[in-house]
């Protein structure tokens, strides 16, 4: 029982990270029709900024605050200089974002000198509920995600700017005709999506090791969560990422069965997650939750 609760807690905190990543990805995709292949690298950048703060001896928490700002700024500059050219050629845009991702990834690889790094948790330690103890940092991640997601929801539904975004999502030309500058809107939204990815990267880096292919890994995971959960819903990716998050320790447990342990190396469980996810998608392409509202 205790074990299961602990796993559930871990899975929930993992899902929270995925939610931050996926919502950034989704808001860009649904507003501009561009699938951002560099999104994983934005996550990586967020993590890297946090690492830089630690390396310079500044508090890690401050790095986590600055990371989304920095990545958001970076996303804004990228949109203004490059992404903007591709709004009427979304497939080519995919290649362009892939190229951007490649550049960021390789630059970071150089900066990290190809090694694995550890970033410490800003609030270390455990907290107790009854006689079970949980990692404080994971709890903080869950709380921050809930606050940020609620903020996004409030922003999109209750503010004038959010209304403009929703309008532009529904009908861009009508929005332009009504005097809304979609150009500025797009730049802002891209920056916002990037900032969410940066935040996710900053928050999760203490739980993982920092290496250059981190972004790629999270891009793949985000893709699988969306496909598993169902495209175009809010709960879908949440459920999908929870499944992926649950599968990792699940397969780890299977792997420790006496016969299989000789055959399977630890990496298998991760690879198996990908394969199982793709096979589920194959037989249930609409995802677990069918497209309904939004």
């Amino acid at each position, binding site marked *: 029982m205790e074990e299961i609760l602990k796993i559930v807690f871990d899975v929930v905190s993992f899902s929270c990270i995925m939610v931050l990543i996926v919502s950034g990805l989704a808001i860009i995709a649904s507003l501009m029709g561009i*699938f951002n292949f560099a999104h994983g690298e934005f996550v990586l950048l967020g993590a890297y900024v946090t690492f830089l703060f630690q390396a310079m001896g500044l508090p890690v928490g401050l790095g986590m605050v600055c990371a989304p700002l920095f990545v958001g700024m970076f996303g804004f500059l990228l949109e203004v200089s490059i992404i903007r050219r591709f709004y009427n050629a979304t497939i*080519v845009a995919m290649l362009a974002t892939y190229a951007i991702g490649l550049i960021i990834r*390789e630059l970071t690889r150089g900066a990290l000198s190809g090694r694995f790094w550890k970033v410490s948790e800003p609030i270390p330690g455990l907290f107790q509920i009854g006689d079970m103890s949980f990692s404080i940092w994971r709890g903080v991640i869950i709380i921050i995600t809930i606050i940020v997601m609620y903020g996004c929801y409030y922003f999109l539904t209750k503010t004038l700017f959010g209304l403009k975004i929703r309008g532009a999502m529904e009908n861009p030309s009508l929005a332009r005709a009504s005097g809304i500058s979609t150009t500025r809107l797009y730049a802002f939204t891209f920056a916002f999506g990037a900032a969410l990815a940066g935040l996710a990267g900053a928050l999760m880096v203490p739980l993982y090791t920092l290496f250059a292919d981190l972004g790629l890994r999270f891009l793949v995971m985000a893709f699988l969560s969306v*496909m598993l959960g169902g495209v175009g819903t809010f709960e879908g990716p949440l459920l999908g990422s929870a499944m992926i998050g649950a599968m990792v320790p699940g397969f780890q447990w299977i792997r420790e069965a006496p016969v299989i342990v000789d055959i399977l190396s630890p990496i298998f469980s991760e690879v198996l997650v*990908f394969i199982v996810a793709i*096979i589920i998608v194959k037989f249930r392409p609409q995802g677990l939750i069918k497209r309904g509202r939004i």
Partner: protein
Amino acid sequence: MKDKKANFKRLPLLEAIILGFLVVAPLFLSDFYTVILTRMLILCLLAISFELCWGYSGIMTFGQGLFFGMAGYAVALLANKVGFVQIWGVIPIGIFVGTIVSFLLAWLLLLGKKAPEIIFVALGTLTFSYAAERLVSGWYYVGGGNGLSIFEFLSFGSYEIEPGVLFYYIAGIALLVSYLLSRYLVRSQLGLVLAAMRQDEKRLLFLGYRVRGFKALVFTFAGAVAGLGGALYAHHEGFIGPNNMGIGISTMAVLYTLFGGVGSLIGPLIGVFALETISFTLSGVDAFKSFWPVILGAILLVVVTFKPDGLTGFIVSRRERIGTFGRIDKKEKNGRKETKD
């Protein structure tokens, strides 16, 4: 129809020049450079495989490296564990592995209940490439992060084919055959369907074509070509590692093709020769080495943004690259003439 200007074709000329150069190249190149050039020829197979998918049928794939690497690993395992290095076995096995793996992927990604979106296929293949790379780098049976070395030379009977002039011509013939087959494929009526698929998939669906089937077909064929490349690569380099089967090499396939020029089969070849030559000539510089991947990314970005036609775009017009498809029926041809008259 005998308009002289329209009949002047630059593309076949370009193909002939490259073919001519490749045929005579080993005669005046030293052994060292012949080996380098052989490697490029093998990488050309990879590039062609990507071009068939993206340039001709509009399937964005980051999986070509996977087929390439799988075939390479298959023949390397065969050489290491069984000691089988016969060329008449190695090449069919490479093609077979490439075909099977790509068919499996096509089945998973392309032949679904609903029509696959470009993004879905791109990310799906990316996922598999990434997963495969992780898998082989952590699986000690296949060498883990160190990869597999092949210690014996590829051989025919008891004759050993060392990397050199003979291997060069074998790779050259493999490339030529794949090139001609692909050329025949994309210039046939099937190629017309593929081009239509690239241009407007929905319309083709409405016309009653089974778009998914065609996609799976060309994807599998491309996989076979990549598999052939992978098998030759493993034996030529005497080594195959995780770097030869994951995202990295898949990205290279994309780069070769886009840099050389999408939409013609000769473009990817030019891309391979150009990029590999640059990489080889500058490989002595240390600062360059660490920044090469970054430069590659920048090249990709510049090509996509400013010159989507790639290098061949400077030489061959877009109209010529689209070209004609298959033979026109005599009847139809006559009909056309009559209306013209």
